[in-house]
């Protein structure tokens, strides 16, 4: 990050953040939002294969929470944590290739969208069965504890996943074993079309922590700095041997479950009111209003993001799809020679 010319600082930057970090956070916010805009274009051109899952309105908490992690920490994102993935080092060109099912994608076309991983960079590929990543991340955090490593696991679930059995089993086991794990429950109002009131009878998802004997916290998910601050506390608590905690991040899903979804179940005025509470707008207003960052510096980053994404699209747009028979290998570490189905061997 370049240092801008310091504007007159009206107040100290909170949460131990530096100006450079504020700029970097902004870069990831903008990168996430603009990458999704590019994906919408590609979707409309028929180049995205399958669904497109937007995180509009949730970029703030994704970026801010993942930004608290250190090298060596491992997180497991959800479909709407594109921002978290980018913070951990996933490249826009990888995301684009995944969404377009290219043979050059990180999963060689075997998996879609943000379903891929890089344990070196510190993110684990999710599966679609909600809640399942909680026990898996409990095991990853257990490995840190067993080796005495100062590393932390962070797992994202949505309001819907808190109803799934694996969530309960995973968080309970993690709590009993006191492993270094932070569970972030992104409360964005809807699981596909199901509102939270039909998902659970608890008033606050943070209250679920009581049942596991762990601390439960709540934060305004559209306040980037607040999300960073509380997540950082919980991550460092876990790193210091404090065990598991749960953070309810209150936010809102402004788009449908996926791009095809007409959102008929979401009241228009509800969406509008959350649009006025946009996390990126709020962040920009705060960092410029407080005099921490200048609008020129933000504009420079906007331009950089725009250039980088144009280059990323150009780099992969015309990549080939994978060859069909590349679907066969690596089901096992040492597969027996792949047996083509008998009817494909017929010589008639």
């Amino acid at each position, binding site marked *: 990050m370049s240092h801008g010319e310091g504007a007159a600082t009206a107040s100290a930057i909170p949460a131990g953040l530096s100006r450079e970090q504020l700029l970097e956070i902004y870069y990831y916010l903008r990168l996430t939002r603009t990458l999704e805009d590019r994906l919408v274009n590609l979707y409309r051109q028929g180049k995205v294969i399958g669904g497109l899952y937007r995180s509009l309105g949730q970029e703030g908490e994704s970026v801010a929470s993942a930004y608290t992690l250190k090298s060596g920490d491992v997180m497991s994102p959800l479909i709407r944590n594109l921002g978290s993935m980018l913070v951990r080092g996933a490249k826009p060109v990888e995301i684009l290739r995944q969404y377009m099912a290219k043979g050059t994608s990180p999963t060689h076309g075997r998996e879609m969208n943000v379903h891929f991983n890089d344990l070196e960079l510190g993110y684990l590929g999710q599966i679609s069965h909600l809640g399942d990543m909680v026990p*898996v991340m409990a*095991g990853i955090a257990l*490995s840190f504890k067993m080796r005495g490593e100062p590393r932390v696991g962070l797992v994202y679930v949505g309001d819907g996943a808190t109803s799934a059995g694996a969530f309960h089993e995973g968080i309970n086991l*993690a709590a009993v074993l006191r492993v270094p794990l932070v569970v972030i429950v992104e409360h964005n109002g809807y699981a596909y079309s199901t509102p939270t009131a039909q998902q659970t009878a608890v008033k606050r998802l943070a209250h679920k922590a009581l049942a596991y004997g762990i601390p439960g916290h709540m934060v305004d998910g559209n306040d980037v700095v607040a999300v960073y601050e509380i997540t950082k506390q919980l991550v460092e608590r876990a790193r210091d041997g404090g065990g598991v905690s749960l953070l309810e991040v209150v936010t809102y899903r402004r788009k449908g479950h996926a791009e095809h979804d007409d959102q008929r179940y979401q009241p228009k005025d509800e969406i509008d009111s959350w649009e006025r509470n946009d996390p990126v707008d709020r962040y920009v207003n705060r960092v410029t209003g407080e005099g921490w960052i200048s609008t020129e510096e933000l504009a420079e980053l906007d331009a950089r993001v725009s250039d980088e994404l144009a280059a990323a699209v150009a780099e992969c747009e015309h990549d080939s799809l994978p060859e069909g028979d590349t679907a066969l290998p690596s089901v096992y570490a040492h597969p027996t020679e792949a047996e083509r189905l008998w009817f494909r061997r017929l010589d008639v």
Partner: protein
Amino acid sequence: MSEVTYLEALRQGLWEEMERDDRVFLIGEDIGRYGGAFKVTDGFLERFGDSRVIDTPISEAAIVGASAGAAHMGFRPVAEMQFIDFISCAYDILTNYVATARYRAGLSTPIVVRGPSGGFVRGGPFHSQMPEAAFFHTPGLKLVCPATARDAKGLIKAAIRDEDPVIYFEHKFLYRRIKEDLPEGEEILTPIGKANIVREGSDLTIVTWSAMLWKCLEAAEQIEQLDGASVEVLDLRTLLPMDEDAIVTSVKKTNKVLIVHEDTRTGGVAGEITSRINERAFEWLDGPIMRVTAHDTPLPYSPPLEDFVLPQTGDVVKAARWLLQY
């Protein structure tokens, strides 16, 4: 040499791998302080400590999920299902997460999920299952079913060293009923994916595995006494990946085949074996491929009911003699 039970052989295998490789740890319900419901892990807590012998809540999905996570990070977890019947609680994690991990994400997941399996012990519907077919259909998993003490030891050690997830079905009827002389101080490793001809014969092949091996051997002996017929008995030992060549080779030698398994009939593994023989050795057959399996019911509790539902030696003898006369 010393004579050890199937259970002791399994125990030795686990113990030796724990001693050999500190990445190996055990996780499951009541396995530490209590030593496991069948005492397979008795004494492990005292020797290896509670960081390598981990007692858990009643959470099969979390046990398997956490094992997968630790395996991604380089550990070699061995998860115990207190009874294999409860593996259905972890079905989602095993089939969707664990089995696909290498393929979809390049993630190595070398875990072993093991547990007491099978009937003949009056355990009722939920402590007697042999749920092999439920996982047989899932690419990415390996399934092993030892029938002998030697293979109980050799397969647990091979499973722990395998790079892929292995479900190890240990038969609880065999735990203390069979004994075998095993050499001391010699490494026993049974290759995964290799069947074993336990009895050579020329008139009929019986393909089987796990506890049914012993009933098939008994049946083969009776048939020889009764009819002078020579029955080959092939113990598959591993269901996934299946040793298809061993099956086909034997079928080409005897030209008649009977498949015997303890699991229920419809959708059972015998159907798949039949199909493979049909594809690869149809013209070598001198009779229909037959199977002896459990009836298609949940496994009942009361002795006459359980005995009726599960395949018995007499059922194998009858089917084999019918086929020999075909």
